[in-house]
């Protein structure tokens, strides 16, 4: 495939985000907090080593589990509950219910019992670990991450890896509210502890996260999208933040985001933020309407950054007239006032330099669709720059404005082709009566394009070349290319 672009669009010498493979499974966790506090001891929790085997395939679906539901069968009879496309459950190793995406956990206690039995049966008989069960169009995926068991039952045609990745996000969300250290400690002290007590209010975050993973391509790609801004504006914003926060000790990250897109991220030298952590932050901001009421101060654990302890986070919206959300993350527990002042200084600076206006303009202008950008045979695309873990997508255009879900399914399918562990492909060209999908994985980027159904391969390849040039010309605006530090 020919392209005149030498360096992939969106690439930068230094990245604000840790670059990550979208399918990696979060086994490796850093410990940065202690380091920042200049303490020597770094603990690395020795993770369990799970043997990767698919235990059984094509297990017959056992009716509606009808043998064990004499009294507590509310949900099994309930067609609304059984017709859900994706169920997600979290339980403790002892089989105690912690979370169910739909329905009341207590009423589903019997079902959690079944799941726990399946896990422990495989564990005890073969010293093995159950991974998944496939039954017709239903996939049961198990993720055993001590001290929790996570299970999803899906009819969505997503791949096992994609489902595992979602379960990992759920696990990380729980870790983010409690820290892994605390989670382990709780169960060391009492194996049959009811974790829901600690998670009150966080179920909402998990609910939102799951909807999020189903709707947003960012989770699929393991990348974030930036709010389009002239690079000069983005730099002014970054320097306003560095200017106000320079002197503050132990400030680790300053993140400005709006409408689920990143505006800028300033970080402490040597520390990077992982996109998966940033996704949790996006989720927190999106799911918490109450953050708009006031300035907020909250502990927050970023599991990829350091799962052992909390960062403390000052969260506030810039102003009434600019709904961008600023997060200042520090390792100090009692510097609210310092950060509150820094925030005031940042807002004043941004107002003086007309940056608030620029952010608002970008938020209110509709991004270009493929059509307005001059690509008539192109319907939609996702472009991910691997080295910076950022992606870009144009605005949705018909027919996908009404079929957003189906579009994402196309992308998920294509993504699966490129990332399938047994036979990963570099290039996929798939034609159907409704559209043509091209997926291309190179060293520097991943590209997923949806074309009009009548396009041929030569036409598609030509267009991809043009598209890459188009993105390259706008990379300053579409991507966060600097990696500013305090």
């Amino acid at each position: 495939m020919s392209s005149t672009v030498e360096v992939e669009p969106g690439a930068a010498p230094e990245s604000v985000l840790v670059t990550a493979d979208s399918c990696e499974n979060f086994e490796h966790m850093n410990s940065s907090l202690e380091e920042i506090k200049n303490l020597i001891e770094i603990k690395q929790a020795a993770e369990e080593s799970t043997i990767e085997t698919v235990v059984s395939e094509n297990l017959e679906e056992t009716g509606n589990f009808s043998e064990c539901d004499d009294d507590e069968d509310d949900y099994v009879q309930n067609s609304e509950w059984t017709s859900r496309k994706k169920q997600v459950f979290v339980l403790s190793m002892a089989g105690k219910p912690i979370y169910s995406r739909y329905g009341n956990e207590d009423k589903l206690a019997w079902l959690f019992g079944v799941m726990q039995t399946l896990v422990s049966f495989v564990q005890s008989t073969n010293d093995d670990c159950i991974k998944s069960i496939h039954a017709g169009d239903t996939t049961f995926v198990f993720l055993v991450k001590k001290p929790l068991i996570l299970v999803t039952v899906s009819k969505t045609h997503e791949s096992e890896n994609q489902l595992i990745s979602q379960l990992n996000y759920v696990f990380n969300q729980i870790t983010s509210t409690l820290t892994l250290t605390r989670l382990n400690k709780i169960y060391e002290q009492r194996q049959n502890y009811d974790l829901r007590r600690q998670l009150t209010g966080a179920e909402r975050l998990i609910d939102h996260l799951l909807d999020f993973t189903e709707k947003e391509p960012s989770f699929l790609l393991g990348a974030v999208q930036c709010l389009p801004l002239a690079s000069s504006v983005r730099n002014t914003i970054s320097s306003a933040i560095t200017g106000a926060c320079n002197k503050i000790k132990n400030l680790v990250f300053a993140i400005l985001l709006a409408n689920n897109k990143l505006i800028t991220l300033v970080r402490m030298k040597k520390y990077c933020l992982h996109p998966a952590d940033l996704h949790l932050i996006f989720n927190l901001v999106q799911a918490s309407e109450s953050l708009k009421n006031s300035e907020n101060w909250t502990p927050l654990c970023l599991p990829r950054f350091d799962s052992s302890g909390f960062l403390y986070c000052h969260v506030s919206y810039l102003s009434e007239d600019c709904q961008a959300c600023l997060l200042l993350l520090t390792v100090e527990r009692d510097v609210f006032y310092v950060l509150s002042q820094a925030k005031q200084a940042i807002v004043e600076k941004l107002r003086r330099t007309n940056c608030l206006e620029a952010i608002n303009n970008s938020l209110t202008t509709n991004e270009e669709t493929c059509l307005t950008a001059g690509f008539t045979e192109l319907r939609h695309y996702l472009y991910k720059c691997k080295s910076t873990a950022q992606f870009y997508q144009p605005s949705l255009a018909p027919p996908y404005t009404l079929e957003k879900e189906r579009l994402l399914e196309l992308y998920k399918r294509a993504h699966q082709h490129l990332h399938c562990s047994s036979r990963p492909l570099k290039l996929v060209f798939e034609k159907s009566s409704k559209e043509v999908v091209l997926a291309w994985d190179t060293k520097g980027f991943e590209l997923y394009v949806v074309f009009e159904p009548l396009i041929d391969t030569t036409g598609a390849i030509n267009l991809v070349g043009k598209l890459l040039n188009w993105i390259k010309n706008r990379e300053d605006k579409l991507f966060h290319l600097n990696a500013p530090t305090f």
Partner: protein
Amino acid sequence: MATAAASEEIDDDVFETQEEVNSKLKVSGKAVQEKSNTPSPTGYRGYQPPAEVIRLCQTDVIEDNEQIVHKTILLGDSGVGKTSLLVKFDTGKFQSGNFSATVGIGFTNKVVSVDQTRVKLQIWDTAGQERFRSVTHAYYRDAHALLLLYDVTNKTSFDNIRAWLGEIREYAQDDVVIMLLGNKADCGSNRAVRREEGERLAREYNVTFMETSAKSGQNVELAFLAIARELKYRQTGQRDPNRFNVQDYVREQTNKTQAQCPNCNT
């Protein structure tokens, strides 16, 4: 019911001991002294104090009462309506339907007017969940006043009030103003805690009590204004402490409004 409340005798010396009043007086006395140290412009003809002194004086005048910031914390179990109460007070609106738990601590500044002077309240809205306690504890110490809420439709939230008061005794200043609020008083038949139970508990711990409703607005202003008033009088310390007593004040005010909310008489 109303008359019963009015006739109850409550020992009301908890809020201001003479010692505290004296210490407050001392503080304000010091401030006055400092002011008198600034060069007098009446010393001789044509004297102009240095620019920074003028500036100091000017800002002093403008921010006079706003400078004194009174820290108030909202406490209570998750879901009793702390944020709703604050939002109602702050914006006059009731956020119906969209329950969204507070994340950590929310911080709002509100200037209220007490007897023609402006009093600045810094209100900390805390998350009720257990896991946030360690963060909120750190801020108890600075608090001048605590609004402790329970939900009159939720017995557990009422039962937990004793535990909350225990925590307050442990972490907050001894002289902190505490007000117990039974929220969601508009509930009608869903009520699970009778008003008398709240009153009894308040009497036992010698704290001010009232029932509120963020939905109807009942007593919302009153709760915050009573706090502001009490804090202002304590701060200035110039008034005879016996002249203002928050419990009497609240009783008086609630009696006045009693007729408007027949629902809350159980």
